[in-house]
Each structure stands twice: as C-alpha cells, then as structure tokens.
C-alpha cells in the first residue's frame, strides 16, 4: 500500500494525531463546528490526556507507517488532569530532541497545545503540520517493512 501511495505523483502525507480529550480533541471538534477546513491527512486518536502518550506510542506510529505524528494537549495550566501535560512536556521535549539526534527530521514529530476554544488554531496546526511533512516526503527511517 505504502509503495503504491508513494509512487503516485500526488503523494499525501499521513499523520497520526494523538489529541487529549478535554482540550485538543475539543479544539478539533470546534474546528469542525466552525467549519475551518484543513487537509484530510490527519487521523485523530483520542486519548484522555497528552500525559497518556508515551514515546513508545509515537515511535509505534512511525513504525506503522505514519509520515508524521502530532501530539496535542491542553495549554500548561489547563490540564484537565492537573499536571498530565507537564509530564508530557518533559517526555516530549526529550523525545523530540532525541529523535532529531538520530536523524529523524525535526518536522516529523510535532507537539502542540490547543485548547477547547482554539478551533481555528487546530485547523492551522493541522495544515501547518501537513505542509511540513509534505515537504519532507514519506517517512522511511523507522518504518517497519512488513
């Protein structure tokens, strides 16, 4: 499947987005409610909190064939679970630097804060991330050859 999609001229990136239920997922809903349009490249996985997202899951997404990963949580201070995004912020900061260190392009793995009221921002982020990943082309480094 991947090869086919890659061989096509119109390659479209596929991006897995882990969104926290309370802010970013709601923000993504608001984008819809407000009809902000963005590219259909994002597949959203609803998680309770950005603090639920382990580096393993991010790597797994890349391994499974995602060209990009987006993890988004509540803004600092807004976490529905008090501090989940603070822990996540440390985990992600290290992971992002580390993945870049081993040669994963900086734009592959993205983290954002999007609140429940930021529908427009979500659409912007979805567009921005898609564009960044599109520029990089398909991700192959950590892709598992099944």
């Amino acid at each position, binding site marked *: 499947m991947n090869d086919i999609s890659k061989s096509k001229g119109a390659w479209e990136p596929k991006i*897995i987005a882990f969104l926290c239920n309370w802010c970013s997922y709601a923000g993504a809903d608001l984008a819809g409610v407000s009809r902000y349009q963005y590219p259909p490249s994002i597949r959203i996985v609803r998680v309770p909190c950005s603090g639920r997202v382990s580096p393993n899951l991010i790597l797994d997404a890349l391994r*499974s064939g995602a060209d990009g990963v987006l993890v988004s949580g509540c803004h600092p201070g807004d976490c529905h*679970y008090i501090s989940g995004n603070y822990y996540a912020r440390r985990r992600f900061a290290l992971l992002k630097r580390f993945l870049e260190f081993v040669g994963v392009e900086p734009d592959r793995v993205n983290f954002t804060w999007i609140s429940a009221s930021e529908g427009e921002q979500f659409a912007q982020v979805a567009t921005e991330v898609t564009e960044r990943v599109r520029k990089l082309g398909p991700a192959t480094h950590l892709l598992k050859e099944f």
Partner: protein
Amino acid sequence: MSTPKGSVLVVGGGIAGVQAALDLADSGFYVHLVEKSAAIGGSMSQLDKTFPTNDCSACILSPKLVECGRHLNINLLTLSEVLSVDGEEGDFQVRVRQNPRYVDPEKCIACGSCAEKCPKKVPNEFDMGLGKRKAIYLRYPQAVPLKYAIDPDHCIYLKKPGRCGFCEKVCPADAINFKDQPKEHLLNVGSVILALGFKPFDPSGLDFTGYGNLKNVVTSMEFERLLSPSGPCQGHMERPSDHQEPKKIAWLQCVGSRDINRACHGYCSSVCCMYAIKQAVIAREHSSSGAVDATVFYMDMRTHGKGFEAYYDRAREEGIKFHRARVHTVSPAENDNLKVRYAGENGDIREDEFDLVVLSVGLATDPQVIKLANDLGIELDSDSFARTTCLRPVETSRNGVFVCGALAEPKDIPQSVMEASAAALEAERILYPSRWTETKEKHFPKERDVHAEPPRIGVFVCSCGINIAGVVDVQAVTDYAWKLPGVVFAQNNLFTCSQDTINQMAETIKRERLNRVVVASCTPRTHEPLFQETLREAGINKYLFEMANIRDQDSWVHQRQPEAATEKAKDLVRMAVAKVRGDDPLPYNTVPVIKSAMVIGSGVAGLTAALSLADQGFPVTLVERKDRLGGHAHKFFRTWQGQEMQPYLSELVSMVEASDLIDVHLGTTVQDVSGSVGQFTSILTDGTEVKHGVAIVAVGAESFKPREGRWNYLYGKNPNVHTLLELDQRFIKDDPGLKGLNQAVFIHCVGSRVPERPYCSRVCCTHAIDQALHLKEMNPDMDIFMLYRDIRTYGKREHLYQEARAKGIIFIRYDLENLPRVSEENGSMVVKVRDPIIDASVTLHPDLLILASAVRPRDDVGGLSKLFKCAMTGDGFLLEAHMKLRPVDFATDGVYLAGLCHYPKPVEETIAQAKAAASRAGLVLSRDAVPAESITAVVNLQKCTGCAVCARVCAYHAVNMDENSGKAQVDTGLCKGCGACVAGCRSDAITLKNLGNEQIMAAVEAAMEDF
C-alpha cells in the same frame, strides 16, 4: 406548612423547561413536564446552529431531550395544556388536559409509513409554514417522544369518519386510534415552573418590510429552517421564489423590537444581533461557493454576551458587512430580488440589491400564554412578559410558581438554562424535605457476559441529516464497515441519535447478539453517554463502545473534498473497530458524597449560593478573601429596576451570619484543593482543612481603573472623574456635592471592546444610563451626555434607555477612530466629541465625567482555576463546561461557577446564576454517592517492578505501592483515568482499562492500513 409534595410541574418543553425538569428529576423530585405540541424541544429545536460556538442546535439539544424523554422521574405530557392550578406553595392541585394523539405511543415505531400514505398535506408549523407535512406527522426528525400524531384539524378521517383512514391501514404496529379521547390529569405537585418561551414576532403588519408581499423576504426563524438540514430544503439554503441559492443576503435588525410605533414592543429582544451574525456566518458556510455576500443593517450592535464580541469581530474580518442603518422600506427588484435603500450616518443615501432579505424578528409572548398566565394569576408586565424583579429573578407574583427562559424577558439559551436551574433551585428550596419521596429508580437489565464470546461488532453510520451525508458517502462507509474483521452488522441512519434509531439500536444489539458497538457520527464528547446507555439497555456493558468522529473531524473540515472525506471516514471507522475489539466490560464505579459545599467568594453570588444550599440543609463553608462579607455589592447603588442594593446586601449578610449551616472564613483564601467530586479536601490559608462534596466558585471580578494610557480621560487626575462604582458610592452616601451640577458626561466602553480587552462588559450601558437618570432626578435642569459606541440595554433595559432619551439625556456616538478628547482648560474639564449625524465637533463642559469602565477578570482567577482544574477564556474569565447548555458547570465535575468570574453580568443574572449553581450542586449533594470513573488504571503485577514512577506522576494520589508486594496498586475511587502513569511506566506494567497501549496501537495500525 405540612410536608410538601415531592413533585413539580414544569410547563413548557423548550430548553428551559427541559433543563428545569432534568435538574429536579436528578436531584430527587418527580417532574410532570407539560408541552402543548406533540414533542418537546421548543424553539431551540428549530434552530440550525447556535451562537457563539456554532454548535448544531439539534445536536447539542438532542441528548438532553432524549435524556428527558427517557427519564424515569419525568412524566412527559405532550399535546397537553394546563387548565388550572389551585392550592398553594407546597401543595398545588393542577388540572391538565392532554389532547388525543390518535396514535398509541406504546405501539408507534415511528416507521413513517402512515405519513407516507397520508394524502393530506398541510403547512408545517415546525418549518414556519415554509414546507409541508402530512396530517399525521412527526414534529421534527429527532422529536422526543418520537411518536407520530394526527392533526385533528386536517385529518380527513377525523373530519369525516369513513373517508380516508389510510394510516390505519398501513400502520404495521396497529398504533392508529381514531377513537382517542382527550384525557384530564389531576396532578398534585409542590411547585410549578413556567417555561413557556416566546413566539417570534410576526412582521405581517409591517408592510414596509415587504414581508408577506415580497417572496424573498423571510423572518429569521424561517431562515433558520431554510438553513437547517431537517428544514424544507434539507439545509441547501434556497430562497422561496425560485429555490435558488441566495448569493447576497441582507439582515434587517430590530424587526418587532425597539419599536414603540408599529410593533408596540419597546424592549430589545436581546438575541437578534447575535443570531443575525450567526446566520450570516452560517449562510456563508452553507453556500456551495462559500461566497455569500452578507450585510447586516442594525441600530446598535448588541453583542454583549460571553464570546459575542469576538464573534462579531470575526464576522467583520470575514467580510460580513455591517451598516448602522435602519431601513425604511424593502422594495422589489428584477428577478424577485430586493432593493434596500439606506442612509449612511451622515445622511448619504445608498441602495443595494439582495437575493434574500431576512427580518431579524424579535421575541414576544404568545397570546395563548398571556391567557394562561392570566388564568393562573401570574402577573405580566407591560410587555406581556412575566413580572419578576432583579432581586428575585425567577419568582412570579404567585408563591410557589417560578418562571424561567424567555417568558420573563427575551434572552438567549445559556441565560434560559441558568434560569431554569435557578427556578429548579427555588422549587427545591420549598420541597427539599420531600426529596426522593416520589421518585422511582432505574433498573437496567442484567448485563450479558461477553468475555468468552468472539467479537461481534455492530457499526452504525450516521448521516446526521446532511451534516455528514452531504460530504461523506455514508453508504460506502457502511458497506465498507461490513467487511471489517469482527463486524457482523452495519447500518446507515439519518439521525443515529433520534429516539427511534436508539431504540432500534438496542433491538439490533439484542437480535444480532452484538457485543461491541461502533457509532460513526459526531463527537463522543456530546453523544457517547447517550449511546452507552443504549448498550446498557440492550444488556451489554456500556464500555464495549467506540465512536468514530466522522462529522466534526471529517465532513465538516473537508467539505470540499468529499472523496478524501469518505476515505477518512472509512479509516476512522476501521480505527474504531480495531479499538473496540479490545474493549472489555468495565465496572460502574461510584464515590460516596460528602454532603457539604464550599463556596468561594462572598459577593452577591457567593452569599446567594451559600444560602441557597444552606436552606436545603446542606452545610456550607464560605471562604472570603476580604475581612467582610459582601464583595463589590457594597459599592453598588441600585439595580436598573431601582431596587437599592445596600439594604438587600445587609439582609443577605445577616442571613448568612445567622445560619448555623454556613461556616464563614473571612480574610481567607483557598490554598490547596485535592480530591474530586463528592470528596474534595481543601486547605484554607487559615489552616482549616475542609472536606466537601462540591465547590462553587464565585470570586467576582474587578472594575477596570483607567489610570494610564489611552483610556485615562483625566481619571485620577481630576477629582470629578469617576468610574461607575465610584459614582455609585457617592449616590449611596447621598453626596450633597452631586446637587446643583450643570453638566455631566459619561463615556462608555472605557477599556471594553478595545484591542487589549476585546469583550463587552455587558453591564455598563445600563448602569451608566441608570446613573444618568438618577443624576437627572437630582438635578432636573442638568445636561447629561452619554458618549457611546453601541447602546446595549438589552431586554427590558431598553425602556431605561428610552426613558433616558425622553428625559433629554443626549446620546452621542463615537468610535475607536474618533475617540472623545478630554482636557482640562483653566481648571475645568472640556470634552470634545464628534457627532456623526450632523458631522460636527461638539464641545462639552462637564463638571462630572463618568467613565463606564470595563469589568475585568481578577488576576487570581488563574490560580483558582488551576486549583480546581478549570479552564479560562482568553479574556481571563472562567470557562464553563459548555457555553450554551452548561453555563454554570465547570468541566471538572462537582465544581460550579457563578457571578462575574464567569462574565460581567448585572445583579439579577448573578443571583440567577448563583441559584443555578446551587441547583447544580444539589444534584451531587442530594445523593449518597456519585458515579466515578470506570476507565481507570490497572496494574499488571507480573510486569511491575515497583519503581513507583506511576505513583510519582499521579496527580490524584490514586496509585501507591503495596507494602506487601512492593508493587503498584490503584485506588479506583481516586483514579481519573488520565493515563499519566501508563505513559510513565517503562515496563508496560500499568495500563488504562480499554485504553491500553495495545488498543491504541491497534487503532494507529488500523489508521495506517489502508490510508
């Protein structure tokens, strides 16, 4: 009074009535909900979208209606009217007549065969007569109850028995009953809540609007129906004359409002400015090209609610045009178009042509309601709204009878919902000794043990009218779902959340022995609970369920890429199926409730909330940061209706002080909060540890002091420059210095609606005008000038504006490009402002300059919001759980808000909101236990190393290390299911039930399979 009755009559099944009914029924009272039409939902169900969130009205309302319709403790009486109410508070005898439905609701399966065959077409009142329905009909597709009814005025058979009768012949359920008779119910209730709503103003009498003569002039309510997917043109937005999509639309504001000449409605209808902007925004979205040219003609733009001004700003940025001009006459043009002539502020005459003109009609009381109110002995005011007062905002003239929603004054949905909860509170206050005496309990069937079964997954794909089906090929998605592993059933539904589909789903689960269910529709954030309950009713655990969000996150965001959206929908369904396969049945956990409350802040909101709870026997800890009770109200002179604040405040304070149940902590703030709904523990700065089941945040706001910068206007520099509250304090003191003044100038919007504080402070227009009137009373010869941007005396406050003008107070408009200039010349103040009408500079010489400065959020709200894990708006006010339907709840369970920390509001709204918060808090406090999280963390002891990362990162102290085994263990009562522990664990030894790594990975992998 002897023991009161434990039941309440709610009259009117709109959003206010439904909310009041739900609040009461959920806190221990039996409710009779009387609705005159065949289904509940009221006006809100007719709306397409709601402002300022653009939520689909039916979508957000539907779960509440369904809940109401299914509630064990709500007796829904549709097609019914109240005949009489006798007796008194605590013990009313009510006669209700229920008109025949001619369809047996027990038997009707809402299959629609009857309506299909019915030969009689009649104008559909739900569509404002724009479309047709049959003589046997459903009020609307998501109607609750979802039962057909025969309209006796049009049914051929009922008019002439022997003729027609097709419905009876085709009904597969044998549900038609032509012999149905009116029934009279005698109800014995303790209290009555009137939520009779409004009727849109009928502009037929206003010939100059062209309504009734020019086909393409429609009312706003008609336009809602034209926009609505369930409306006469399936949401494709057609204009009446030729069914073409209008490309250029005008909205004319204040039709039937602020008009004492032709409409005889001097009040402002409060909601029309916002709904017009909303309609303009939505019309642009609806249009196939996205290029609707939208123009709003208005007098004052009244975007005074939370998030409204930003919505207005955005609409302007998006290119929606706003002309400050009332239009005399709409004229016909070629091709059934419409010509609108209007005057610029300087008198320039312009003319523009439109495809469609929408009249933003106001809200009025239905003449039938006026009659009912008279029959019930409820006083109405001169505008025919129920008479209430600022200090008793939901009380009618009859004891024990309360009012909420637009019946008391035109208002928007959140305000109606707030009042509904407040009215419920008033009833609870009377009836609390009889809580749980007349209620019934819900029993679900025993759940089937599905552990041993292989997955049998059912997939329900929703069209959501055209919300989804208009973009996504739902049939293709349904066909695709059939092919997924484990799927044994798939089906497409028009509205999956409609009651018939829900019932059908339950049947399907049983029939097909489904043990996992996926619904592909809107967002789980609103609809998951509804579908989960359906699973329970069908006898399987509610956690064997997933949703695929193919609307908010698909069809709505890829409107112009139907193919890609369809592929995405398939992916989302595949992901949900992959995820649901791993779902296990989970236990239904509960948390015992500490039956006491903490109220933070002792302004009018806090005092009211505390008293409202204490009155029902719940202990309250009242925490006040200052060293006296009362908050800002000490500085506040009177309500706009003229009730003086100080005596009222003293009374409140003394009642609180006298209450045995209220424990007051002055000079204290909250330092730390732990726990969650039912079981909070708070530490106060005075060292007290408070255990409480709920909390109400009512910390108020501040008045903006324009000491520096652009809005200074000599404030703090000239002793005769005051803010509104400072002038109030002089009024309270009856300052003799205010007598004999020659000229006063008020400047409105000082620090509001400006780039750094873009919201409207809502209260200042009314407050300033009331002050001007008071000054005028003291000094009849004085000249008073109000320099304003838009006068926002919404609702009945408009009368005050009118009175002010009548008394010669002069209003001069300014805008941000032409600010008033204030200077000091020879020790006296000089104000220069431009009058836009005569285009002249006006020089004023006030000896009193009043700045209607902004209400700004308090800086410490942020800290408090963090303590309670509540969100804040960009403006710095606290953010409720849902702007429309949960206006006093926080997203955090068991925490509520009231008063100015939510948004600037006048005292009547503060009182109503405080009572609403108390009512919502009562939902928890009235119970011994509340449901707790079921999706909790669980430890795999084989994998656990006991390293305690999980315990370290848990914000709820829900994970700790077992002393015996040294391994992690989870206190499910405390666990909120956030998963911080799961992500922190290197050993994969702790996971979330139904949200384990394996399941998430399955979803991720499924997403990638066929992308």
